[in-house]
């Protein structure tokens, strides 16, 4: 008896000490309590595959040109390239295409009489590799952007095959953060085609939102290697946004992947713009493009929107360029971050966006804690009123229960969410249930005239099965919620299951050991129950 008491008291003290130790560190608050953003992005891997094919197309065309093979036509169709070359250069073509082992080459039927038509499709393993790489690349890029944006303890992780989970606790300007994360930031330099007569047919300005309609309207007249893009114009006085369509080359003269640095510079009229620096390859390319296209206009395109269309005055060497546009300074700042961190390999879709403002979070914490305190007070008072000294004992155990629960939550690095607080409040209500069941059993035994000591033992024995049952059923649902719940719900499930388990421990071990200690010291004749 004595050793068993020592052992149990020791266990309780040990657990309490561990809990106190774990609680020295503040608990992590969930996004619903501290405010912040929870995003799930889906990477459009298919687009990354298409981009790769597009890039390969350029390279293949260049090597064909280098070998002086006349190309009748070459274009991308989905994930494959359609190539038509004259029949007489067949051997040369085959030799060149042998250098591109990633493509499966298939002769197309319906070959035109004077040439060979081939379908070059990207092989399966390569497609799979690109799909996988696109998600991890996007993740790295986004991590870079967020790091530069400055958020404390962001969580960025891959989820499933092509999803990225992002949690930004305490982010002040969710709108800005999302623009920064979600934009592809693909920078391209494209030449304006002003010689094409059809370009003159385009309207001078259109309403924002009418872009798709305009593109559809002129679809049939746009040559295969040209496209319509829109410049975004903001009226400085009225703030009105209009869009101006331009006919530009489909093929980019230069892409943003050659950028080494991007910074905000403030212009003469206090206008922010972004100055970019190219790497050596980019600088050479830029020099070549500007040298070959004097007096032409170059469109600076970011994510398919034209920002400016400067005229090339002369060959630009030195590898620098400037993006002007109607930016605010924070827009310019975010753009420079996005350009430095690089473009996403493919566009991303935001498929879940949960944002909680800091004021609501604070409000939730305050109300949650208040509800917890009031409920604890009410329950404690009721137990004292109904069960007197034994009620006091139950209340002590309630405190122990809460201490261990909080300690366990801290030890498991669980995040405290509002449903989590609700679970703790629920635990307060259920913790005393166990004591009620035991006490009522003891009362039954006392009414039958049993001496106090035997009544207590019998009470515990007989109450055990119903206590056990009610805990197990709650635990079953908590487990199901844990397995299939997300975020706050998981927090609820964790708090509830820990609460239930600890409750079983404090009631069956905690209260019992105190009864045993009292019983051993004094022969109890009366029981305040």
């Amino acid at each position, binding site marked *: 008896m004595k050793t068993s008491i020592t052992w149990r008291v020791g266990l309780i003290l040990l657990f309490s000490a561990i809990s106190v130790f774990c609680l020295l560190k503040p608990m992590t608050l969930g996004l619903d309590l501290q405010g912040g953003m929870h995003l799930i992005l889906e990477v459009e891997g298919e687009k990354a595959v298409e981009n790769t094919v597009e890039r390969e197309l350029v390279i293949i065309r260049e090597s064909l040109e280098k070998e002086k093979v006349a190309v009748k036509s070459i274009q991308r169709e989905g994930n494959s390239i359609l190539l038509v070359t004259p029949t007489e250069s067949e051997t040369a073509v085959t030799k060149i295409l042998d250098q591109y082992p990633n493509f499966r080459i298939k002769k197309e039927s319906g070959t035109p009489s004077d040439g060979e038509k081939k379908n070059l499709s990207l092989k399966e393993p390569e497609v799979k590799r690109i799909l996988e790489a696109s998600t991890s690349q996007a993740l790295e890029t986004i991590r870079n952007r967020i790091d530069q944006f400055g958020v404390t303890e962001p969580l960025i992780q891959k989820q499933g095959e092509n999803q990225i989970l992002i949690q930004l606790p305490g982010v002040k300007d969710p709108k800005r953060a999302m623009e920064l994360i979600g934009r592809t930031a693909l920078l391209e330099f494209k030449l304006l085609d002003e010689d094409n007569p059809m370009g003159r047919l385009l309207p001078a300005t259109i309403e924002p939102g009418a872009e798709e309609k305009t593109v559809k309207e002129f679809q049939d007249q746009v040559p295969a290697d040209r496209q319509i893009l829109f410049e975004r114009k903001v009226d400085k006085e009225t703030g009105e946004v209009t869009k101006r369509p331009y006919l530009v080359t489909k093929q980019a003269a230069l892409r943003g992947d050659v950028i080494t640095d991007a910074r905000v510079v403030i212009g003469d009229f206090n206008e922010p713009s972004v100055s970019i620096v190219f790497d050596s390859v980019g600088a050479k390319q830029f020099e070549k493009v500007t040298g070959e296209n004097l007096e032409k206009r170059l469109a600076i395109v970011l994510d398919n929107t034209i920002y400016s269309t400067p005229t090339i005055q002369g060959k630009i060497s030195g590898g620098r360029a400037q993006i002007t546009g109607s930016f605010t300074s924070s827009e310019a700042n975010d753009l420079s971050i996005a350009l430095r961190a690089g473009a996403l390999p493919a566009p991303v879709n935001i498929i879940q*966006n949960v944002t909680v403002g800091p004021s*609501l979070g604070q409000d939730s914490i305050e109300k949650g804690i208040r509800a917890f305190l009031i409920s604890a007070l009410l329950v404690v008072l009721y137990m004292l009123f109904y069960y007197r000294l034994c009620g006091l004992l139950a209340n002590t155990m309630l405190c122990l229960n809460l201490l261990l629960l909080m300690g366990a939550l801290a030890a498991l690095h669980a995040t405290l969410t509002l449903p989590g607080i609700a679970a703790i*409040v629920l635990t307060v209500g*259920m913790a005393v249930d166990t004591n009620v069941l035991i006490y*009522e059993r003891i009362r039954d035994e006392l009414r039958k005239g049993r001496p106090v000591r035997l009544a207590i033992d019998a009470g515990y024995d007989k109450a055990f099965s119903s206590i056990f049952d009610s805990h197990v059923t709650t635990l079953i649902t908590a*487990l199901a*919620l844990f397995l299939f719940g997300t975020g706050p719900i998981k927090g609820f499930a964790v708090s509830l299951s820990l609460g239930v388990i600890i409750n079983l421990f404090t009631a069956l071990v905690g209260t019992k050991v105190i009864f045993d200690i009292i019983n051993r010291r004094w022969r109890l004749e009366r029981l305040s129950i």
Partner: protein
Amino acid sequence: MVVETIEEGIVTMIELFKKTEIDFVGKRFVFFVISGLAVLVGVVAMIQIARGPSGGANLGVDFTGGTSLSLKFNKPVRMEEARHILATGGLADAELQAVVAEQKLLVRIKKEGGGKMDTRVSNLFFKALPENPFVVESSTEIGPKIGQKLQKDAGLAIILSTLGIILYIAFRFEFRFGVAAMAATFHDVLVILGIFYLLDKEITLLFITALLTIAGYSLSDTVVVFDRIRENLRTKKRELLPTVINRSINEVLARTFNTSFTTLLAVGTLFFFGGEVIHDFAFVMVLGVLVGTYSSWFIASPLLIVLKDVMPSRNEAPVFKKA
């Protein structure tokens, strides 16, 4: 209910229920009819929920996909005005709800916004009401894919916990008692579902969570009563089943009341003081404790009598299996 302090030499106790003799099972058919109707509403609610967004149930954006926003304004906003502002922005099908006391406006839009619907909505209000600044307290936008996943996950959680509870009951109870306990649990869940449906409250993930918690919790009251019935069936073999059941419920009345009452104190505080985010959740818990207590008295126990007629069992068969 009598508060009485007994001093009998060895014990000091307060008893709210001094030897009661309430007839719980006598009017069982009345309660069966009432509960039957309530369960029917619950079944209708379940069918409507299963029909998805086109059904009559008020499914939250967690399941349908879409956006819900909570905007807190400096000055009150009239509903018609807000509706007009959204309609001019092409969001005529937005659902609006005002929390007048806190000058809050809850906006729900069940269509895809590519993760940027919150910006779109706040821009509309920002432009239309420049003299009435507001903050976006919270916004949730769920894409259709995530909605489907959450729906699937919620379904799996429901199936798993139902299965778990059924298996546990099968393991612990004798067949007749198991059926009654299960019926009572389903009764509780369906009645609450029905109430939510009638009140046109939003069916969200948090609601499902609360409902499952209640499914687990409501069993515990039933277990306590059944435990006593088992004991009394063993010791008082001569008595009629209705008498035994009535006596058992009366004997454990105090503990059923006390366990329910303390839990009610806790979830009631949550309901009144826990804040709006947790409000519906707490509401389910309050209902759950009340309905759960009702069902263990008026449904689960009287069902034993009905079931005895339907499936007579051997007299000595244990009511509970040994744990």
